């Protein structure tokens, strides 16, 4: 440490926040050594600021002591983004959990970063509004984490990812300066630093307040469940639907493996003998919804659907969704461990890519359950394994890497919504040239964040960072999360 000892770091932080909001004893720190993935690393100190000024004070103190700063929300991230690989000060934003404003006239919400995604949806609902980004972890994840990861969800297909719903941000920069970016009015003119900050995985600044766009709930919604003999047929139904000019708000795939895991536990009504199912939702004015639903139905049949069910009643729709949402949790109960992957391909490539994913898993000797955002081409293979078996973890990681290769070779990318974090830094070179990566490093340099602000994340290389390959995975599901 350049200046001061760990003792003075803790003392300075305690001076800024009060001793109650600074953890530094080993037994207290251990809870914060991981997120929902993988590699573990202990922070030197964990702080719980309550205001923007306190966040800035923490960043300033870390700067003075020359130690890293790592922001953290609920720790549900799936790429290791909140893991303090090089120690330092872990800034946990969960105390900043107030919804400051929900304005139905301007359709805007102003929130602190620690607000839970679902809490915002619940606050907006009585006004006939909703916050559209709905990651499956929405019962526990924070808006700050969503912004940092540009998180998606089942409804991203029509509504876009988090970035499309963030109007303005208040950010504490790596030099402890506080800035406001964007505007309460959408699409503000000028250099879009807001758009750059969203998805920067806590490497360019700490979000301390967000102004978000709310959308009006649609007058009519219909949920369809289409049953297919195979994932390939279901994938073709996605393209067939879009070819017919309809973009549903959600098109979620469940393969046979996942249906057999979920159905006995949740009783969502998925046929146990289905090869695959698509959960599809359309919304809008009633007449339009009826028409769109008819187009979807016809497209599914054309692609070989054995049956298409339609649910309009809220209770029926919820039951269908319950299975989807509980799917990943159910895998956790069905296997000693699993590795949840996130890749993205052009949706027309889904049939061939899924065939390769299944073939690779079979060849490697692992069961693989798939539940994913088919409409966006966003895959989530879940590789189930027993870490007690020899070399299992290593082999799972190899398989994961091979699957990422398949995505990249199909013209896709290495992450659709979970982020690069620590997990996929070394794959960045598969998609970007050295010049592309140099430009991204230049952004980091411009923000003055290179070595100190959430170090060893997103970009390959970096002072004092490991190669970037995961050594260990311990899929650790957050209590209360449903997926």
């Amino acid at each position: 440490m350049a200046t001061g000892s760990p003792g003075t770091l803790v003392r300075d932080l305690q001076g800024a926040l009060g001793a109650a909001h600074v953890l530094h004893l080993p037994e207290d720190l251990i809870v914060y050594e991981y997120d929902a993935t993988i590699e573990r690393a202990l922070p030197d100190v964990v702080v719980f600021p309550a205001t923007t000024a306190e966040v800035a004070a923490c960043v300033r103190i870390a700067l003075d002591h020359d130690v890293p700063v790592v922001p953290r929300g609920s720790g549900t991230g799936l790429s290791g983004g909140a893991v303090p690989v090089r120690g330092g000060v872990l800034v946990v934003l969960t105390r900043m959990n107030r919804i400051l404003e929900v304005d139905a006239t301007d359709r805007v919400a102003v929130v602190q970063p620690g607000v839970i995604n679902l809490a915002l949806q619940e606050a907006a609902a009585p006004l006939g509004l909703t916050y559209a980004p709905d990651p499956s972890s929405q019962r526990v994840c924070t808006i700050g984490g969503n912004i940092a990861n540009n998180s998606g969800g089942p409804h991203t297909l029509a509504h876009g990812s988090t970035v499309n719903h963030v109007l303005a941000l208040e950010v504490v920069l790596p030099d402890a300066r506080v800035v406001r970016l964007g505007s309460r009015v959408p699409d503000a003119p000028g250099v879009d630093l807001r758009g750059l900050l969203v998805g920067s995985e806590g490497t360019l600044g700490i979000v301390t307040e967000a102004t978000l766009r709310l959308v009006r709930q649609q007058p009519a919604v219909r949920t369809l469940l289409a049953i297919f003999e195979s994932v390939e047929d279901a994938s073709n139904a996605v393209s067939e639907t879009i070819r017919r000019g309809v973009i549903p708000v959600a098109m979620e795939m469940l393969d046979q493996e996942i249906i057999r895991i979920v159905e006995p536990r949740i009783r969502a009504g998925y046929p146990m003998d289905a090869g695959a199912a698509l959960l599809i939702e359309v919304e809008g004015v009633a007449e339009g919804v009826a028409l769109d639903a008819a187009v979807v139905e016809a497209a599914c049949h054309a692609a070989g659907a054995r049956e298409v069910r339609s649910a309009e009643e809220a209770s029926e729709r919820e039951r269908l969704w319950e299975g989807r949402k509980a799917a990943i949790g159910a895998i956790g109960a069905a296997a000693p461990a699993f590795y949840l992957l996130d890749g993205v391909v052009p949706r027309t490539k889904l049939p061939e890519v899924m065939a390769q994913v299944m073939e690779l898993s079979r060849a490697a000797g692992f069961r693989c359950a798939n539940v994913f955002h088919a409409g966006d081409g966003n895959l989530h293979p879940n590789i189930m394994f027993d870490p007690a078996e020899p070399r299992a973890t290593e082999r799972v990681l190899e398989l994961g890497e091979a699957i990422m290769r398949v995505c990249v070779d199909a013209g896709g990318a290495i992450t659709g919504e979970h982020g690069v974090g620590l997990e996929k830094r070394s794959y960045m070179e598969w998609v970007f040239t050295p010049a592309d990566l140099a430009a991204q490093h230049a952004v980091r340099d411009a923000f003055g964040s290179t070595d100190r602000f959430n170090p060893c994340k997103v970009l390959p290389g970096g002072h004092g960072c490991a190669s970037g390959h995961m050594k260990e995975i311990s899929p650790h599901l957050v209590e209360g999360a449903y997926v």
Partner: protein
Amino acid sequence: MTAGPDRPDATAGLAALRRTLPADTERAAHAYAIEDLEPRIAFAPDDRAEVAVLLRTAAEHALTVVPQASRTALALGAPLEAYDVALDLRGLHRTMEYVPDDLTVTVEAGKPLRDLQQELAEHGQYLSVDPPPDDQVSVGGLLATARGGAWRGHLPSARDLVLGIEVAQPSGALVKSGGRVVKNVTGYDLHRLHTGALGAFGVILDATFKVAPLPVATRTLAAAATSISEAASVARRAWDASLSTRAITILAPEPAGHVGLPSAPTVLVELAGSEAAVDRSTRDLAAFASWSDGPAQGWAYLRRLHGDQAGTVLRIGAPPSSIATMLEAARAAGALAWGHLAAGCVIAYADGMEAHAITALRQAAERARGYLQVEAAPVPIRRQVAPGGPGDPALVAALRDQFDPSRILNRGRWPEEGRP
């Protein structure tokens, strides 16, 4: 004014450009004048490597470059401070990849939006943007200016639709970000940084967009009101009814007259979707106002006026709750004014407006938690009134130090404190 008396000697730089670029890419410089400046040299390369070489050579010789294509938005930003090289990008006009079933298209920056829309329409698709002044805007210009029209707020804007880009940096590096998939969080979104930056960080060479199915049916309806505030509340009800709307615009009496309607405060609505959805929406609208078929060409008229570089055009950001107030204020300042409710945006058009009047409108907009961007105005006015904030100036400068350290691109468009 061409070469001013104190314009430094650029002979070596011009010779170097002529050496490095194919002779048949050089154009007559006088055809590229911008306001009172004429470049020393002009090139129209048709290959991205040539763009990179041009930038690197210009940077080496400290020559300033102004990238351009359709020349529809050259009055945006503060007036240029220097202009040595015109970089005409119209030669980059290929469609590189279009997969209708993926709803994605990758096109070069110099392609006019009109040509892109034609190709997409053959497959029943379109890019859901309506920038000023019309579809002659180039794809690169669409992104660099990030301007939109009446659809914004109802449909995703250019900023939301861009999935990835390739740019040429002043260093000569070709740099990609994003990709060709519709959902992607791989690396920093440099494409968002370039969108709306007026070329501050690089020259956009190509872009991949998310496209959408063309609506089967569209219909324009108009309802007159007795006051702007009454029109605003009709517009509000239309918005809250969650109909298949693609535009809800409030017109002050003057622009209503210009589009062939009676000169009264008017709500102009465009419905778009399936026949059934448009019919249902038409019926629902009738529940709270009396509508007549509106002039469909009214939209094109408003776009053209918004994009008129000869006049004074202000884009005033105002949250939906203060649209009517800002519309009144713009009208009181002597402008033709109309407001897009969902986008929270009032467009004010005038033959001319004093700097103090613009500043007063800006203060009013900022009090309403909005902003004001000067989209066109005579040079002297744009020297007095800042064009509109570039975000956090210190961060923007730090980013420019990384990407364009000698400020060869569009020098002056974003005035920087403490820099000549």
